[in-house]
């Protein structure tokens, strides 16, 4: 029987991970996601799991590398400056093709930026933030329910493709409370982790090596070729998005995360006044839903990209539209108030819509 409870986004992330069977969390305190780290510190010991508070986010990355190499489901949660610090190890994790889940509760950047919400890590998440060129699956929840569900999906996708999977959240989503159905989602069977390090005695004497120095052994181009074949396979089969009133729309809003909720509100306001406005919400930011953007662009739609940043996802919308559509932008400067507390509200987005139609 599914349990329906009123919980915050941070607890939904935690419950989602527990429902996915994740018992190994490595974390470092950083605002605005401390409640997630504290959730695991509280919940894991009584379940036979392990919580380690590391000395830095750099160390968190190295710990995720180790736990994943040992074959267990493992994750961390962080916010933007911590996300930045992890990039070195995330590149090694990616080159070693280890399944790892990271929840990044974005706050304003660059630098220390702010301690509040923002969407300024889109590019570093979707382009492979560390050295060398790699891809990570990036999932973008837009509700507390999705914080729960997409965290579970992240573990499945990470294990299915042996890839780093990021849940790109924000400071608003994890701090709001909404009703959530807690459930363990069955995504289907997964291959055995027969590559994991467990000590030769546990594997009939067989030994394995997982090493980021494998490029030195003479097959570097072949390794990259195999990695990029995998990326293509993911691009072909894992794109996820949602459309809302987009069929007859002349203007299509594109937004993710908390901003997507505000876009939805703006669409309702526009429709109430008979304006043909629709909405596309990417759920996977990588792989990005280029095809639906391309389709709407070729139908003559115009776009309004809404992001709580100075404009990052707009690059992907432009790539999808292939120069065939007018693309407008509403960003962080349109927040309802100055300072770090402002948000992009539906009323402001609607105002922009009216200017364009």
């Amino acid at each position: 029987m599914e349990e329906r409870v009123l919980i915050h986004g941070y607890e939904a992330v935690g419950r989602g991970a527990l429902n996915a069977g994740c018992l190994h969390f490595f974390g470092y305190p950083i605002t605005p996601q401390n409640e997630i780290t504290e959730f695991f510190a509280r919940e894991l010991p009584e379940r036979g799991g392990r919580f380690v508070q590391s000395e830095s986010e750099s160390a968190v990355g190295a710990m995720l590398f180790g736990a994943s190499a040992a074959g267990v489901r493992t994750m961390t949660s962080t916010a933007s400056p911590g996300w930045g610090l992890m990039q070195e190890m995330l590149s090694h994790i990616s080159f070693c093709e280890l399944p790892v889940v990271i929840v990044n509760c974005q706050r304003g950047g660059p630098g220390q930026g702010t301690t509040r919400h923002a969407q300024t890590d889109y590019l570093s998440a979707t382009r492979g933030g560390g050295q060398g060129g790699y891809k990570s699956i990036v999932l973008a929840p837009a509700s507390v329910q999705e914080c729960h569900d997409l965290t579970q999906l992240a573990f499945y996708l990470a294990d299915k493709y042996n890839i780093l999977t990021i849940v790109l959240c924000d400071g608003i989503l994890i701090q709001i409370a909404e009703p959530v159905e807690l459930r363990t989602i069955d995504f289907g069977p997964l291959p055995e982790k027969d590559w994991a390090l467990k000590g030769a005695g546990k594997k009939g004497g067989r030994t394995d090596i997982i090493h980021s120095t494998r490029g030195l052994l003479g097959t570097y181009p072949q390794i990259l070729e195999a990695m990029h074949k995998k990326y293509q396979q993911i691009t072909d089969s894992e794109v996820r998005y949602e459309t809302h009133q987009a069929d007859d729309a002349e203007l299509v809003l594109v937004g993710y995360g908390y901003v997507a909720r505000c876009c939805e509100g703006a669409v309702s306001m526009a429709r109430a006044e008979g304006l043909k406005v629709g909405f596309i919400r990417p759920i996977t930011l990588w792989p990005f839903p280029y095809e639906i953007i391309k389709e709407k662009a070729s139908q003559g739609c115009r776009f309004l990209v809404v992001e709580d940043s100075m404009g990052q996802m707009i690059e992907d919308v432009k790539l999808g539209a292939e120069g065939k559509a007018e693309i407008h932008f509403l960003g962080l400067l349109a927040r309802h108030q100055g300072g770090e507390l402002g948000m992009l509200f539906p009323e402001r987005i609607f105002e922009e819509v009216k200017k364009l139609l």
Partner: protein
Amino acid sequence: MSEKKKELIYKSTELRLPWPGAGCPGCGHGLVGKAIMETLEEMGIGDRVIAVGGIGCHSMAIMMTKMDRTIGAHGTAPATATAIKQALFDDVIVFTVQGDGDCAAIGAGYLVNAAARGERITVFMLNNANYGTTGGQMAPTTLMGQVTPTTPTGRDAKRFGYPLHVPEMLATIKGVAYSARSAVNSPANFQRTKRYVKAALQKQIDDVGFTFVEILDPCPINWHMEPVDALKWMEEKQIAEYPLGEFKNVDRID
């Protein structure tokens, strides 16, 4: 001609892959690898270990073994080893092999914090007084006056500070069960190295605390010395700066 029966009196350890050695002439890393692997064999724990290599020549010693093993980023091995141990609990014995730059410079934060948490892992730090892989630049362990490509007129205190004494420092940390320094410059010190390696691994198995052994070894190529002269330099200079012995050895931490 009568055939003499040949008796096998010396061979490579079973845990080593039959690959040719990768070290430069007179390099000590092979001896350190041998000391570790022979000890693992003698303790009968080769199939229970997971080894974590650092970044540098020393990680070849990890790559060339018949053990479960991993190599990640420069300096991070204690954090990676921490997580492997936390993930697999008491089923495995986890150790790292790291260079002095890897362990005491870029990895010092990981090392000290793993020690402070009392992680049940063992760190083997190879001290050859320079960054061997990249061409012999100054390491935290480079001796005063030692000429390297980044201390072309010799290490002087004003610009480059002082040699770091890692096992002595770790001995002050409560979570540490064992901290020692040995060398592989002589047969006697090779045996001492094996004793320390064994003691450290046994304390991990006994669940006492964090364990650490620094091992001095020669790097004749980067020291610009003949291998025999390098051993003499170790004896006269390196061991004089870095005394051998156990700095902490406790059976329980209260």
